[in-house]
């Protein structure tokens, strides 16, 4: 390598590192925000419904009726609250105090003797996820009760029926933290790139310091490399934080080999940093750069990468859009590496795609830095 290259690169690098370290806001976003996000994701976000409040309206006070709803209190998913009347229960639902109403009608025990008793379940459908879960739990509790009744009466209720034996691979307990935390790795790598590097070149354009650099022997590629390296180190520290928290704080398994997880994450980090730098070089304006970075990299990574919304359920066009995002490819890989283990076909394919993105983005950024004035 030419000595000139090394000397110029080191000089630029020193300037970038100083600039990074002097401004506290950089370090706040680079290190503090990921730390806060790790805690929020691990402890704050959960799709697992527990203790959902439901109003229970007992219009039939018979022991049988009470026995039916007794099953709800035993469930850790439901937390029944007695309500005096349907009107009272509806009021609570409108106020948002309960997620659902279970109503045992006045003729319940009479109808039960005839074999067609009904229980009414009214759900607040606004939060459809919780509604679905509550409906499942209530049906489950009723099923258990019916089963017990059948056992008591001695009839062979399940004679010749199909029973479902469910087995959840990779996440046996069905704990949503297990897939949220690997997704967090993707989000944090995305955020480091989008937020930290997207202002770098735009700022120099706005202040005119880039034009000053044009009269020096500095080449565009040296500039790109010097701007990427310090933030790459910040991103690597974030990655270490994520992995340590996943392992020791949240006890999410890392079933793939650690080296592969680290290697692919660093590759994605490079793509993400290069994307931020490219946005910065293209917009040449800090206001626009920050808005574009937020909209083009961070929001899609959160909403369209398969982080929480399963891409199998979205229309083909949206699937196409999501495939354009580097985050989607990395999201699939990182979840697999954490929960399923090394899947070499997937590792190589994703690495190839990410490497391609990195090369294209760096080349594109380099072009935006050509020594040309408008």
């Amino acid at each position, binding site marked *: 390598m030419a000595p000139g290259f090394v000397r110029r690169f080191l000089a630029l690098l020193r300037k970038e590192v100083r600039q990074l370290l002097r401004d506290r*806001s950089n370090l706040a976003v680079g290190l503090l925000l990921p730390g806060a996000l790790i805690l929020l994701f691990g402890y704050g976000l959960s799709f697992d419904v527990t203790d959902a409040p439901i109003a229970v309206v007992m219009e039939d006070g018979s022991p049988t009726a009470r026995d039916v709803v007794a099953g709800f209190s035993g469930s850790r998913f439901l937390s029944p609250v007695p309500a005096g009347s349907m009107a009272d229960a509806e009021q609570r639902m409108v106020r948002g105090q309960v997620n659902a109403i279970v109503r045992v009608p006045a003729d319940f025990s009479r109808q039960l003797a005839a074999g067609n008793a009904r229980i009414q379940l009214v759900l*607040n*459908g606004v939060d*459809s996820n919780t509604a679905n879960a509550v409906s499942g739990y209530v049906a489950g509790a009723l099923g258990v009760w*019916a089963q017990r009744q059948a056992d008591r009466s001695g009839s062979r209720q399940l004679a010749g029926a199909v029973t479902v034996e469910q087995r959840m691979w990779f996440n046996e307990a069905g704990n949503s933290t297990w*897939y949220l935390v690997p997704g967090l790795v993707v989000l944090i790598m995305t955020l480091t790139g989008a937020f930290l590097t997207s202002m770098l070149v735009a700022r120099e354009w706005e202040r005119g310091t880039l034009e000053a650099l044009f009269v020096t022997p500095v080449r565009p590629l040296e500039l790109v490399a010097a701007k990427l390296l310090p933030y790459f180190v910040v991103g690597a520290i974030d990655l270490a934080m994520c992995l340590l928290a996943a392992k020791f704080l949240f006890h999410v398994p890392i079933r793939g080999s650690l080296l592969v997880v680290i290697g692919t994450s660093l590759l994605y980090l490079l793509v993400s940093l290069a994307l931020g730098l490219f946005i910065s070089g293209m917009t040449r304006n800090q206001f626009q750069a920050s808005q574009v970075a937020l909209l083009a990299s961070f929001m899609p990574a959160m909403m369209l990468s398969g982080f929480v919304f399963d891409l199998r359920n979205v229309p083909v066009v*949206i699937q196409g859009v999501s495939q354009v995002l580097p985050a989607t490819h990395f999201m699939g890989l990182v979840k697999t590496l954490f929960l399923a283990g090394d899947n070499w076909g997937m590792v190589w394919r994703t690495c190839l795609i990410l490497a391609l993105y990195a090369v294209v983005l760096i080349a594109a950024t380099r072009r935006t830095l050509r020594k040309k004035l408008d």
Partner: protein
Amino acid sequence: MRDLVSYLLQIGFLCRKELLALFKEPASRVILIGPALMQALLFGYGATYDLTNVPYAVLDQSRGAAATELLARLDGTGVFHRQATVATPAQIADAIDAGQVLLALNIPPDFEARLASGRPAPLQVILDGRNSTTAGLAAAYVGSVVGAYNATRVGIVSPVSLETRAWFNPNLESRWNLMPALIAALSMLQTLLLAALSVAREREQGTFDQLLVTPLTPMQILVGKALPAIFVGLLQSTIIFLIIRFWFQVPLHGSVWLLYLGLFTFTGAAVGIGLSISALALNMQQAMLYAFLLIMPLMLLSGLLTPVRNMPEVLQIATYANPLRFGMEIVRRVYLEGAGFRDVAHNFLPLLGVAAVTLPLAAWLFRHRLA
């Protein structure tokens, strides 16, 4: 009287200048309007928890009529699509590992025989738990198909039947829950950033000092800076609202006026946070980074993706400082539930509280934080 008119006129001039600065440049114009439109469409289609396509694999070791009928019922739902018919358990593992299928059914060799002899016949369902929420939904779906099959096959009817009805969202479509929330969330993202950059940009370019030596009082500067940002926020909300109402056809149950009153208060609180950041920051880079530092937790702790009720107690208390949580709640409840002012009045208090702290703070900082 004349004083008041000139006071208001001065604010008007500043507002006009701010709006010109925002909308004069074509690129900025696109950035303020395009993304709201694009994101509403993309996320409207993309952000869904509803199962529409569950690819599955079958290992049918019994090859009997019962298994065939059960599978036919599964296919008949329109949601389950048989992706592979495999011959060995190892192939199930391959199909799941590769993400080719979400679940696999393993029908044991004695399935038919057990059913015929009146014994329970286990059907093994293996799920890809890499997204345990989707997997759980799919498992529940399989369970209900199997239940219906049992009921017709053996003629067992459970002595108790559950009649389920869902208010406000009869088909339990997750889009209905998510999209109204986006009216508040998407516009907040850009508005907060816009407000955060507004003063910082003038500081960086040196024009803020000029603004401070004009006869404008800090209060006037504050209002002149806040109103255009609120206007942009409401503009974005309106775009998203129109898409949800007319493109995705989610019916509006409440009053439009109440919806906008809620959005105005909410956007005001968000702009207050943005302007405080802006007044604190020394340059645009700092303003942007501090804004992001706040935006992320605000989004995550708002109930946008996961319900607030599922959070630990401490975080639930922390959400009281989060305008997005209450703005979203107002929009969701007014939009979907048709809630009236009295139903949502308590949600206005935290919003007004945040605005009452951050807006004066920003005005004070304008003069007291000079680099």
